[in-house]
């Protein structure tokens, strides 16, 4: 456990050296927050509450998801894939630590750093400037925090598997693009899952991507509270675990098949 703490801290410190990228990302996330907010509000004004989202719900949704982007990092993370492609993975494998454990800890460090600036930044802007829904009690706040942590775990589980792709596929970048598209569509980031037709909602809620974005939002907004809140968080935990196990098997198969490239 102490080791994991050190790895998390090292991950945090590594990512913290990229200050300019952090500021640029923060700026972009805020600008897009205004854009997405304007679009959703326009839609709601036209159609009335959609899928049970009031204007204050919709604004909370927009600014929370803008804050979650960097924290869960469901798009484009390719650090591990690049190490496999270049063969640098060789040095990771000479260390006395399981690579999955190593990368998970590092990812929590990354997420913690992202939370501090790119997570809190957009949420602070949105919540100060607009009238948004906030949880009524501490209990709901705490559930939200747990749900976000699980979202990072699920997101990592998905990314870990996709990042192992270069072991089998030379064109792993294609796999990454597919995973980006799926994440955008299925996570509830494009628009709230509640806005989709009934059949799509059922499917999307059951899949792991919802656990990265829509689940924490539902918990925050109280759309999943009481038993349904427990079910939402329970499903997140189940997906986190299932993906971890899948990642485990993929890693075992991959290490056996691994061909380390380059000198």
């Amino acid at each position, binding site marked *: 456990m102490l080791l994991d703490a050190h790895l998390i801290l090292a991950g945090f410190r590594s990512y913290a050296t990229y200050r300019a990228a952090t500021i640029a990302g923060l700026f972009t996330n805020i600008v897009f927050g205004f854009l997405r907010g304007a679009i959703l509000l326009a839609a709601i004004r036209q159609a009335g509450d959609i899928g049970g989202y009031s204007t204050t719900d919709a604004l909370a949704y927009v600014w929370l998801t803008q804050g979650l982007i960097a924290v869960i990092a469901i798009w484009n993370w390719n650090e591990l894939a690049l190490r496999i492609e270049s063969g640098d993975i060789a040095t990771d494998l000479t260390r*006395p630590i399981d690579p999955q454990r190593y990368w998970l800890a590092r990812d929590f460090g990354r997420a913690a750093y992202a939370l501090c600036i790119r997570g809190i930044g957009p949420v602070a802007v949105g919540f100060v400037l607009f009238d948004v829904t906030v949880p009524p009690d501490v209990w709901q706040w705490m559930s939200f925090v747990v749900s976000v942590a699980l979202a990072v775990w699920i997101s990592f589980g998905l990314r870990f598997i996709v990042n192992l792709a270069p072991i089998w596929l030379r064109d792993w970048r294609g796999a990454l693009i597919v995973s980006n598209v799926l994440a955008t569509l299925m996570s509830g980031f494009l628009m709230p899952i509640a806005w989709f037709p009934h059949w799509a909602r059922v499917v999307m809620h059951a899949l792991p991507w919802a656990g990265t974005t829509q689940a924490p939002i539902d918990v925050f907004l109280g759309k999943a509270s009481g038993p349904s809140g427990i079910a939402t968080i329970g499903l997140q935990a189940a997906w986190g675990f299932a993906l971890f196990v899948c990642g485990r098997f993929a890693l075992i198969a991959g290490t056996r098949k691994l061909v380390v490239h380059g*000198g």
Partner: protein
Amino acid sequence: MNVVETHGLTKNFVVYERNGLIRRTREVRTAVADVSFSVAAGEMVGYVGPNGAGKSTTVKILTGILVPDAGTCSVAGFVPHKRRLELARRIGVVFGQRSNLWWDLPLIESFDLLRHLYRVDHQKHQANLDECVERLALEDVLKTPVRQLSLGQRMRGELTAALLHGPTVLFLDEPTIGLDVVSKAAVRDFLADLNRDRNTTVLLTTHDLDDIERLCKRLLIIDHGTVIYDGGLNELRDEYEPYRTLVVDLVTSGSPLAIDGAETVKVDGPRQWLRFHRDRYSASELINRVGEVAEIRDLTIEEPDIESVVAKIYTRQT
């Protein structure tokens, strides 16, 4: 006791070459073929060969990263690919073209993190660190982020990183690649001391023969995946390049010396070069012979450089 042992180690890579849009040809490339050798505790062995000979592949098998297709090996008593994590605590590995360090963090933080990764107790870690920092002159760069280090500084950092947990075997894959003369010398001196003072077993992969000349009594030469020489450096010279050259500075310039069993290959004023077979003369015998016919002011013996010896082996192979 043998720290490293291999029998009939073989590794093939399958490569697909695309010709045309859809058609690809499958080709099996043998990187390591039937390699057998052993390294005793405390030995420092040079593993030499041209690019693509199979050196790195061997190191990757011995460190448990690659699974061999055939043959067996053991390192520090473990079958590497079956017990990779346990083996990792007992070995140190440096891949000259890669990094063991965390690019974004100051050097010292990489070292701290490695202490936790390898679960080294604080005192042992500190003692090892102090020693490396002093011998490799790293004091001034400990707080510098790794990505800002020069190659020479980084490589000294890599060596430190590989040694902090006190490994019994050290695998060095081209540790001097790309280094300037001064950094190379620093790394070599350090390795020589390490092997002498701590009795660490070292397998040193290189295509820089000066490394070997300076560090290793024994060398393995590999070419096209096969070990073609395993023995001492001096024996290698004797076997493949038995000629040496005596360079004499005579008191007076004159015609080439004519000495039975030695060939005067070059004359430059009072300086003459005599090439002789080591079975025919010992150096002192030849010097006496020369002394009988001319007055010598100064002399040196030139040993064949190992580079030309190895070049000879390679050409004899093909």
